[in-house]
């Protein structure tokens, strides 16, 4: 049997499958169902300097082959994540975990990353400059090359861990932003975050989501994500994590052919809590079907 292993910024993953931030909590709900050590790793719930409740409800709207969410970075804040969530996680997950970080200022990002840098179990920092659901921060850092680079420089100054920047698709030239992050010292790029979307209730004539708009995700966005991963992988030399609508082992292979070193799975986890485990279990057979010996051989293999 061939190998599923990939190397993500110097850390080896048993397989490239990573549940995406915001769809996997801190892992416990899933650890009740299966051994989450079977995952490559996972990206935990987006963490900010201060605790946040997030947006008013309804926060969820269904779409054809996808969904919109406007959770708005609900999390207990970095101090509590370190004091309460990470010790609990340690009991059910023995691999390096990806810490997802958001902020409302450059200092916020640096503060939170500096705290998480001291945590042994944190393998990578995934810096989210692309949340579409908060104002005065989040996505505004990811829509300008200069602002994104400034966040990267501030974070790199306070951590020795690999810094992966999570980018927004709600931009005209994502490759330029990825390049700016690479030049500022980023160790990897992950993309795509959700697309800004909206649904309207025909009966009430009101937006379905209390915050009016939210992030669209799910299988519907997969082709767009593949295109952007391809564009970014061709503009930077650092590893790229592909995500956006991935739900099957074939999707993982397609993302890797487009240039992804690893693949995050988001909305699929909410529909089927076993989605990532099923993908991992299906990978060997799917690799055989396409004559793939080692998964790492196909990264960027599109001709």
């Amino acid at each position: 049997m061939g190998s599923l292993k990939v190397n993500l910024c110097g850390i080896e993953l048993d397989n490239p499958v990573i549940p995406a931030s915001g769809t996997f909590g801190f892992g416990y709900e899933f650890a009740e169902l299966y051994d989450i050590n079977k995952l490559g790793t996972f990206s935990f719930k987006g963490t900010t300097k201060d605790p946040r409740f997030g947006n008013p409800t309804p926060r969820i709207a269904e779409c054809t082959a996808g969904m919109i969410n406007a959770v708005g970075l609900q999390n207990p804040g970095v101090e509590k994540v370190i004091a309460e969530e990470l010790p609990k996680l340690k009991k059910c997950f023995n691999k390096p975990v990806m810490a997802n970080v958001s902020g409302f200022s450059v200092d916020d990002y640096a503060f939170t990353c500096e705290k998480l840098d001291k945590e042994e179990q944190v393998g990578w920092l995934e810096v989210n400059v692309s949340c579409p659901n908060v104002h005065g921060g989040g996505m505004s850092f990811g829509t300008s090359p200069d602002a994104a680079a400034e966040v990267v420089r501030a974070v790199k100054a306070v951590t020795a861990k690999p810094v992966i920047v999570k980018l927004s698709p709600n931009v005209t030239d994502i490759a330029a932003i990825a390049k700016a992050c690479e030049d500022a010292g980023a160790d990897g790029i992950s993309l795509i975050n959700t697309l800004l979307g909206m649904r309207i209730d025909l009966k009430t004539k009101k937006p379905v989501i209390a915050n009016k708009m939210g992030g669209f995700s799910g299988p519907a966005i997969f082709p767009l994500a593949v295109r952007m991963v391809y564009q970014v992988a061709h503009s930077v030399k650092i590893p790229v994590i592909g995500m956006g609508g991935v739900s099957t082992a074939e999707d993982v292979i397609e993302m890797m052919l487009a240039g992804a070193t690893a693949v995050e799975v988001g909305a699929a986890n909410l529909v089927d809590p076993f989605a990532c485990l099923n993908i991992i279990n299906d990978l060997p057979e799917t690799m055989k079907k396409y004559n793939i010996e080692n998964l790492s051989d196909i990264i960027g293999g599109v001709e």
Partner: protein
Amino acid sequence: MKKGIFEIKENIKLTDSVMKMTLCGDAAAITAPGQFINIQLDDLFLRRPISVYDCGDNFVTIIYKVVGHGTEKMSKMTAGEKLDVLTGLGNGYDLSLSGDAPLLIGGGVGVPPLYMLAKKLIKNGRKVSVILGFNTKDEIFCEDDFKALGADVTVTTVDGSYGVKGFVTNALPENYTHFFCCGPEPMLKAVYKFTKTSGQFSFEERMGCGFGACMGCSCKTITGYKRICKDGPVMMKEEILWEA
């Protein structure tokens, strides 16, 4: 929580818009009345969370109102069809707080989760009173089911076409030890205001996953932020913070 494939045994109409569906499969993950199941439907992305009406080792029965694409699709399904279902979701009601003479208050499609609760409370030797609120006579369902359990049942209708005229709060008895409530939010607020004992409320919200992963259905309570799907849907009266 458990994921399993269930076969539809029966899917029948109770009123113009309310249906009762019985599913056969492993229901062992359902441990308390007031929990819900989450059903996957072809061509619809998110699952549909529906409260449990009754269950046994190898079956679960739900009662649902046809309100949107998902329930519309469910209403057209027939015996023998199979569904992918997550079972045993949510906390459910805490029966240990009932006291000797609990009062169960349900409104519309908030009635079904109270059935298995009444059944268990009666089995535990409690003297159970039930108030079922509906808009009008044609919308009434489940009255006889509660009566068959031996509960003392009062039905209210807003238009007075059957039972006590008015809302469930017009039929509150003098004495009860604790209450359990499920229904539309205006009803929950009225019950909150007019009841004098401790009690439990079951809440509804648009959900993403239904098992605590996405934070799509969070609410604020006196004891902190809670996920309606995982920490709820049942909340204690004492911890509720009504949004302005």
